């Protein structure tokens, strides 16, 4: 039975989940991770750390096999596929809010003509070759309230019209400067020294307005609030959106970020980051 649980929520649950989880933790003490547990609540196996991250899936299978050996044979489940996050990157909720789907990871390539001005020549090789992933994917969601979402729509529907989105909205996208999904490492809106997002109407034809976006961000985040553990990041973004003129509503949004991040020292080697924020109406 696959169960995915938020540590902080389960600790405060009042429906019996808390007591079961605390019992599981007492039997096999690990902060988070994977436990294989019998229906009666007996821990059969568990895993917190991986000896070799590149072999992580094999180690996890070993943990599952260990639990199944202890439990005994089970028939495969035949569940129906599920969409547990129907509003992630899709649709507008009743209160007018939306949830952007976020993706990020370390990247390589893309061409030296895309190197930011402040990158040292010794790091230029990071832009050589085609744009390609250089690390595992980060997934996240970003909720925008109705008034924040409205800022992406044009006030004036004619080609060439421009507007600047509120800084508070741009700041919410600062999260995309990091590929970490650990709360202690993720930059917060208040970490941004620069957060600018501008837009213009590229064209209006056949009831469709094509919108364009460009933005830039700089941030400094203290890991766990420790002044000795700063992380420095910068990124630019470009984007496009489709706007339904008659329906006065957004149909799609795509923002693509390209950035650099360095930790600990201002002169530390940089890593390249890429990120995407996307949404569609249906």
């Amino acid at each position: 039975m696959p169960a995915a649980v938020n540590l902080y929520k389960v600790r405060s649950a009042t429906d019996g989940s808390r007591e079961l989880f605390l019992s599981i933790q007492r039997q096999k003490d690990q902060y988070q991770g994977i436990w294989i547990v019998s229906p009666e609540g007996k821990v059969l196996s568990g895993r917190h750390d991986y000896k070799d991250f590149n072999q992580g899936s094999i180690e996890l299978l070993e943990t599952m096999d260990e639990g199944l050996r202890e439990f005994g044979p089970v028939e495969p489940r035949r569940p129906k596929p599920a969409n547990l996050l129907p509003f992630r990157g899709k649709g507008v909720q009743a209160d007018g809010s939306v949830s952007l789907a976020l993706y990020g990871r370390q990247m390589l390539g893309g061409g030296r003509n895309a190197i930011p001005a402040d990158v040292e020549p010794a790091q230029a090789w990071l832009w050589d070759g085609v744009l390609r992933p250089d690390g595992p994917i980060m997934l996240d969601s970003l909720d925008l309230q109705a008034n924040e979402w409205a800022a992406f729509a044009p006030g004036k529907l004619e080609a060439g019209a421009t507007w600047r989105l509120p800084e508070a909205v741009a700041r919410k996208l600062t999260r995309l400067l990091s590929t970490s999904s650990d709360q202690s490492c993720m930059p917060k809106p208040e970490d941004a020294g620069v957060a600018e997002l501008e837009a213009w109407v590229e064209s209006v034809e056949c009831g469709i307005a094509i919108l364009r976006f460009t933005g830039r961000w700089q941030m400094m985040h203290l890991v766990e609030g420790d002044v000795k553990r700063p992380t420095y990041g910068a990124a630019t973004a470009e984007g496009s959106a489709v706007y339904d003129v008659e329906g006065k509503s957004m149909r799609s949004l795509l923002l693509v970020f390209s950035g650099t991040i360095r930790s600990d020292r201002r002169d530390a080697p940089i890593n390249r980051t890429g990120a995407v924020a996307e949404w569609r109406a249906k």
Partner: protein
Amino acid sequence: MKNLMLLASLAVAMDDDLGAKASAIKPAPREITWLGVPWVLNLAEAQKMAREEKRPIFLWVTGDDPLERC
């Protein structure tokens, strides 16, 4: 409405450069197959279902909502 959606799709498709950059960053299908698993998000409910189906629980716990942020 169909024409509108078609035009919108074409407009996005025409933006090949931006789309190609996004595709290079976004996960390949094999990286997110786990999102299709019908996870139970409540531990007590998972135990109830495990009892009914007489099978163990695969419990995944993280410091955020596991399916939302990882």
